[in-house]
């Protein structure tokens, strides 16, 4: 269908870029910055090409732009790439957030004695691994990058993070995710053994669904646990506040904005089509976990004293909503969940950036160290409030649409007694208002903390660079808040295809696209 190997390029460009940037000498920090930014710009350009060439119609093949190159034949491990609407949205999010995160961290490293080229190389490597997980259409290939991405993020947190606990946070992040990944590995291998040595996603989906039963339940749990840790869902969330609190703001934006979406994306891409019966079996449990997550994380967020940890907890609450949306098994809810992933990336990404601006000025992320900061930083405070309101899904901002769809779909759902779920989850919105408004009030309003007047940074409002990088996010949040149709159009066909597995009518799936480049 398409002649250019665009998806391979999407993975290869940042990967090669990472190697090039890593080889730049430490003294040439500016060269490293601009090269890295250029590479991520090229990725954004490639993403735009994919988005323009993508077929958004309902009967289009599920995976598009497919490519496949033989790698390790003995395992059916091929470099197979393909993209659907859900992945497209997340790829756009990744390609958009990465250059913004780079710009956000542009000068942050000047004050610390850490290598600048290594930092940007790690960000590019992370981008490559994240894109690869969205684009892989081979289960083992997905697993490779799912695990490999831990390494750059581990160094970003442990080496470039802030605070006393950064090493602890990095190790906890790594081990928690590695454990999930290794349990998934058992399930991956068992799946492979059970189906006679197939890892190709399209082949697995086209084949007769797996027989319902114990094996399918265990395989589901193996996959799901890894994804639930990555997302993270309550009660597997404890690594996120530590990691999000310790990571430098740019990396935290990528961690919470994009990397965590891999968990929820993979539930849609792998758990539901491969193990539909088990998904239905466990749906009430997952929804229960999600509702608890929404309420619990919101309460804990209210009690936080550290801005970055607070934002991390709000994300856990939001992942609860996504969980409810996916496992309600209605078209509205699932579409809402996909939109939620995208919009949450925008809103939380923005929130982390603004918190990053604040902490680099004040040298602290403790809420108590602020107070009345809006007086000298009116614009920053305004953006902070905007990001907070977007994060609590104020109507007119993009997250509102997704949250509304999720709750609507959950309420209308016919599976698992969903009215109480929708009602309980709605309580989460009220709590969200509490933590956002209170956070804003304690930092920006109220009595001015006299210490702030002694800090030169606290008198400097947003610089041109900072304005330039929050502007696209603010605009996107507003545009998609009023006109979400493009997002819905992109997500809908893939969501419908996925839900066919729940209703058991997989014969209605569109025909697969012929694979280019054998």
């Amino acid at each position, binding site marked *: 269908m398409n002649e250019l190997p665009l998806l391979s390029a999407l993975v290869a460009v940042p990967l090669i870029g990472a190697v090039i940037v890593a080889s730049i000498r430490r003294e040439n920090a500016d060269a490293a910055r601009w090269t890295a930014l250029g590479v991520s710009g090229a990725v954004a350009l490639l993403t735009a090409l994919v988005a323009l060439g993508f077929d958004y119609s309902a009967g289009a093949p599920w995976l598009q732009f497919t490519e496949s190159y033989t790698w*390790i034949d*003995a395992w059916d491990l091929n470099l197979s790439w393909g993209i659907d609407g859900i992945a497209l949205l997340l790829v756009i999010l990744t390609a958009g957030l990465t250059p913004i995160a780079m710009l956000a961290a542009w000068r942050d490293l000047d004050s610390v004695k850490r290598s600048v080229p290594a930092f940007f190389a790690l960000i590019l490597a992370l981008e490559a691994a994240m894109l690869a997980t969205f684009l892989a259409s081979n289960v083992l290939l997905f697993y490779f990058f799912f695990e*490999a991405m831990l390494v750059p993020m581990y160094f970003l947190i*442990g080496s470039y993070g802030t605070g006393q606990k950064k090493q602890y946070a*990095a*190790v906890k992040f790594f081990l928690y995710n590695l454990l999930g990944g290794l349990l998934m590995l*058992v399930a991956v291998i068992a799946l492979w053994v059970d189906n006679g040595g197939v890892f190709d996603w399209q082949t697995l989906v086209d084949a007769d669904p797996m027989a319902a039963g114990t094996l399918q339940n265990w395989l589901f749990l193996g996959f799901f646990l890894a994804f639930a840790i990555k997302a993270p869902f309550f009660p597997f969330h404890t690594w996120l506040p530590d990691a999000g609190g310790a990571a430098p703001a740019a990396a935290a934006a990528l961690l919470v904005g994009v990397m965590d979406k891999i968990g929820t994306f993979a539930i849609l891409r792998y758990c539901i089509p491969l193990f539909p019966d088990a998904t239905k079996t466990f749906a009430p449990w997952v929804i229960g976990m999600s509702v608890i997550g929404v309420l619990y994380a919101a309460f804990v967020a209210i009690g936080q004293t550290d801005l970055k940890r607070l934002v991390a907890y709000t994300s856990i609450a939001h992942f609860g909503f996504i969980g409810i949306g996916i496992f309600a098994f209605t078209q509205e809810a699932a579409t809402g969940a996909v939109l939620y992933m995208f919009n949450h990336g925008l809103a939380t990404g923005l929130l982390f950036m603004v918190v990053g601006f604040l902490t680099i000025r004040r040298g602290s992320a403790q809420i108590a160290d602020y107070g009345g900061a809006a007086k000298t930083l009116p614009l920053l405070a305004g953006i902070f409030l905007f990001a907070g309101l977007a994060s609590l899904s104020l109507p007119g901002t993009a997250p509102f649409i997704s949250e509304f769809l999720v709750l609507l779909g959950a309420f209308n759902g016919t599976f698992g007694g969903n009215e109480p779920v929708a009602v309980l989850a709605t309580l989460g919105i009220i709590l969200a208002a509490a933590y956002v408004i209170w956070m804003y009030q304690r930092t920006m309003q109220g009595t001015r903390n006299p210490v702030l007047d002694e800090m030169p940074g606290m008198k400097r409002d947003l610089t041109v660079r900072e304005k330039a990088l929050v502007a696209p996010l603010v605009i996107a949040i507003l545009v998609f808040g009023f006109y979400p149709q493009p997002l819905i159009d992109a997500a809908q066909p893939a969501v419908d295809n996925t839900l066919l597995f729940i209703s058991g009518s997989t014969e209605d799936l569109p025909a697969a696209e012929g694979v280019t480049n054998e």
Partner: protein
Amino acid sequence: MNEAQQAGLQIDWAGLAPMVIVFVAAFGGLLVEATVPKGRRLVVQVSLAVLALAAAFVAVVLNSDKHGTAFSIEGVGIGSVVLDGPGLFLQGTLAILSIIAVLLLAERRTTRGGDFVAEAAVVADSAADKAQRREDGATEIFPLTLFAVGGMMMFVTAGDLLTMFVALEMLSLPLYLLCGLAKRRRLISQEAALKYFLLGAFASAFYVYGMAMLFGFAGTVDLAGINQAGVDSGQPRLFLYIGVAMIAVAMLFKAAAVPFHMWTPDVYTGAPTPVTALMAACVKVAAFGGLLRVFNVGLASSAWDWHLILTVIAVATMLGGAIFAVTQRNIKRLLAYSSIANAGYLLIGVIALGEAVGQTMFYLAAYGFTVIAAFAVVSLVRDGDEEATHLARWAGLGKKSPGTAVVVTILMLALAGLPFTSGFTAKFSLFAAALQADELGLVIVGVVSSAILAFPYLKVVVLLWLNEPAPDAPTVNLPSPMAGTVVAAGVAATILLGIVPGFLLDLVDQASTFLNT
């Protein structure tokens, strides 16, 4: 026609060539010690050893399509030396790994005169001992190594218990001696040698006793015969149980499985690091080669009898090695416990029998390269004259010697089994084979153990990159081309087997059938 041929004994000399070459070179090495002037011995010995091992490797490759016995009487094979896929593959692996190990033994730049003394038995710290430490190291280590490697090659191709015993002694005795030759920390080195020797002697005694039991049960020491007897022998089955248990104890001792692992941390720490590398890579290959053959060829028919106990041992080994590794503060002890845990993973391959032979061999090769490189790096990081093995001393190495730190990071990630390293490919294929053999429980334990074990590896990486270096931090000595080659080869193999393992996977697949199974 000479007498032997008249009696109908045919010998496949080409098949025996790898071992013959190594043993002849070992004796040649002894002659070199006696004849060549001291100044030139090192060069001659190293070239002799490397050439012999390379020639042995070539001979193995030339034998690669053999599937039979080296000795036969009137066309009927007698099983003392068996040339089959696994045996030849492991011989080849041993040849390659021991070439690398010999290069590491020959490293002389990091410490003046090398890491070895001439006499192991001199009282530690006596005047004579201090004198010999000032001299150049002994070059007898090379013929000793060749004898050990020859023994290992024989061990993996031995088709009956008696030949296997001879090979076991042949590979063990030189190693006992090599362990005691460390130039620094003489007392610990001597302790290691003595401990290894005493426990090894016990293990050998167990082996002989077990062999007697099995002979009583089967009426033969031939592995295929024992297997047949497992089906139709009229003797009490108790003999079989005792025999299997005794033999297993001896071999699991060499393989360092829990609860026969106690010697491993002490010996790995006390022995000169190049010898530790040789043990961790080559002895492991030999021990598991032997275990694979004994259990696949000799005891497959009685699998029901030993399956449970071996499973228990595998679980204990995986968890024990991983948990004890977490608390280690010395890099050599950490690697020792990691080697124990890896023995546990390899035991899964043994328990899974026929379906996992190839994958177990792949694991052995992949692990061997990684661990040799790891010990090579350990021998480069030094406090003055001594190796800085205490982990705290490695803090901040990434700042002062980023190259070394990158190498260590790659090796640690490989040992932790991250994708794109040989550690992942090896674990993946081994666990996949085990699942095909319905060993789900063992695989889950293996995965949990890997997760635990990731912590100590990660601790090393944290120390390297995230901690500030101490003011008197150890230096990384620039290696001579010898140790440099070792590290480069190990790291290259670790990455290549992670990214393009296809050729080796195909090779072990073809070479996974034992004769007589």
